[in-house]
């Protein structure tokens, strides 16, 4: 495996250089063992296509999204304004992120606090790489596989991004099946709105079980998604049904990276 090239903003700045796009890794992508694999898959794609990017590294900080959804507006705005100072300090214009929660907050809520950037989700960036011909896949690895896609709420309903992830799956030469509740009617995995960090309230079922059940009804080989939280929730769901040996939960970036033998 080739070594990942992950320049930081500070390093680039030191050589007087500037990236075309900042890769906002997010807390999950930086610290969660499962999500780190998604981060690496994104970097592999960026490296392969020679996208000039950089990360903030230790200078990156929580966007404040979970604090805001949990009602702590003070903490959110503190985080946001500090992040904006860092981003503006590096004169960042364009941001790509692997986390729909970071995506939504950076794109929609930072402008009101003075942070104006072009923000895209990694599936949109990968889609652009295909469009410009920088990336191609053979699709062999996924031939005959059945893939379903779980819409992350903060990508789909919250920001109307439904096509990019689907177009990428179509490139894999696999069989794509929609769940009953998909796109604008997609069911949440259960971990938005700061639920990721707390136990669920009492009920008769966990939300991720409900959603995984729905996905498994389609008997897919792969449940694809585009969010580290959704990934965790769906992976747990699959384990709950003891299907982890038959059904993989993968991010779109991982699908593309694997298909391209990266």
């Amino acid at each position, binding site marked *: 495996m080739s070594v990942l090239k992950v320049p*930081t903003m500070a390093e680039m700045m030191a050589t007087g250089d500037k990236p075309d796009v900042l890769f906002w890794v997010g807390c999950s992508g*930086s*610290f969660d063992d499962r999500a*780190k694999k998604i981060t690496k898959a994104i970097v592999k794609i960026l490296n392969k296509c020679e996208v000039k990017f950089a990360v903030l590294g230790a200078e990156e900080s*929580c966007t404040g999204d979970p604090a805001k959804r949990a009602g702590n507006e003070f*903490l959110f705005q503190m985080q946001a304004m500090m992040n904006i100072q860092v981003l503006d300090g590096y004169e960042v214009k364009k941001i790509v992120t692997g986390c729909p929660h970071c995506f939504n907050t950076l794109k929609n809520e930072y402008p009101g606090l003075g942070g104006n950037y072009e923000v895209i989700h990694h599936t949109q960036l990968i889609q652009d790489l295909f469009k410009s011909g920088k990336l191609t896949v053979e699709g062999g690895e996924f031939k005959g596989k059945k893939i379903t896609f779980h819409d992350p709420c903060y990508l789909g309903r919250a920001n109307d991004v439904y096509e990019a992830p689907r177009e990428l799956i179509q490139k894999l030469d696999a069989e794509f099946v929609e769940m009953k509740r998909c796109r604008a009617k997609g069911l949440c995995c259960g*971990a938005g*709105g700061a639920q990721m960090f707390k136990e669920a*309230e009492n009920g008769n079922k966990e939300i991720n079980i409900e959603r995984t059940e729905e996905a498994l009804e389609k008997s897919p080989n792969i449940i694809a998604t585009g969010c580290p939280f959704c990934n965790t929730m769906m992976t747990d769901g699959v384990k709950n049904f003891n299907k982890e040996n038959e059904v993989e939960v993968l991010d779109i970036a991982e699908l593309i990276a694997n298909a391209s033998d990266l």
Partner: protein
Amino acid sequence: MEISNIVFILVLIGSGSFFAYNVRKIIQNIRLGREENRSDQKKERWKTMIRVALGQSKMTARPIAAILHIFIYVAFVITQIELIEIIIDGAFGTHRFFYESLGGLYTFTISLIEVLSLLALIATFSFLARRNLLKIPRFVKPEMKGWPKLDGNIILYLEFVLVVCIFTMNGTDEVMHRMNYGESYGFAISSWMGPLLFDSLSMDTLVVLERIGWWGHILMVFSFLCYLPYSKHLHIIWAFPNTYFSKLKPKGEFTNMESVKSEVQLMLDPNADPYAVPEVDPNATPQRFGAKDVRDLTWVNILNAYTCTECGRCTSECPANITGKKLSPRKIMMDVRDRVEEVGKGVRKEGDKFDDGKSLIGDYITEEEIWACTSCNACVQACPVNIDPLEIIIDLRRYLVMEESKMPSELATMNTNIENNQAPWQFSPSDRLNWKDEA
């Protein structure tokens, strides 16, 4: 002028005034909410209103309900044309005022109304069956017990009586018209159904039946008008302003609280004097962070609550509700409306100082409900009239967190982690890039 015309005019003025009086109270209640500027992007707002309210575009997500609803909706709107004639006839003692002057157009209009009324009748029976026989899950949730259930049925009973009256009126009139002039009105349904049902009756009975039909119909309309402000059925009016003023921004975008913004800016400003005494605006009213009660919500939130027709699409799409949690977005809207009715009454009696010691959070909505929300926007997406329960839920969370420091303990830990390590988990910020070198 006959006594019946006077009675008619009195009933017309009486019910009209009663309706206006109640709507005024509701507008006062909506104004109890905080300021929120929704006067921007007028063109986009008109488009949204035409698409969502007039065109009912979001109803189509459930085709059966959408088709049945469109029957009643179109029948209701088109029947208003006939209402003009009924008011003229009622006030001046004329009979079918436009019949002579409009000719063929008249026959067409009344025929259209008859066809639509029949479709509305079919829809009415279907709706009654869906609520009471099929017991479709969203109509039998806990918040639908008692008054909300009765309210839903009352509207349908009124609708039923109304349509029966229309056909009695037109059917008997048809028979009498044939007797008197030897010709048919030629209306689509009553011209054959009238003779079928009423042919054997005497002229006297026909006259009485026709009057019962006519008065029954118009009295139903007036009762409906008086009943409307007490009913969830008010959506037929509020759906229009509600969609017009609905959020145009991406669903994921939450408001940045302005009151917090200035504080945070001050904290982060290196030039700010930490010991400075802030300028005090003597006219400023202390404002809460977030919403404890309905007066802390925005007027749009309250308009949302009055627009809610309790269809329960939101609740049936809510992941928390689907998995048995207490949260029901519909209940949130019903609670806001019930509470603002109560506060409105109090404020009209005692003025702005009104305080009954109760509040929306705690007395109406429990903390357990609002913490169950995943902020997934499924409820917002599902609402056929663009109601936003999520905004209210978040504002209630803001109050609990920022004013009362009340939150599930794991969230307190999460906040501390973000404050100390810039991540919701307890990792060191310096380890952020470790993934790069891990196998």
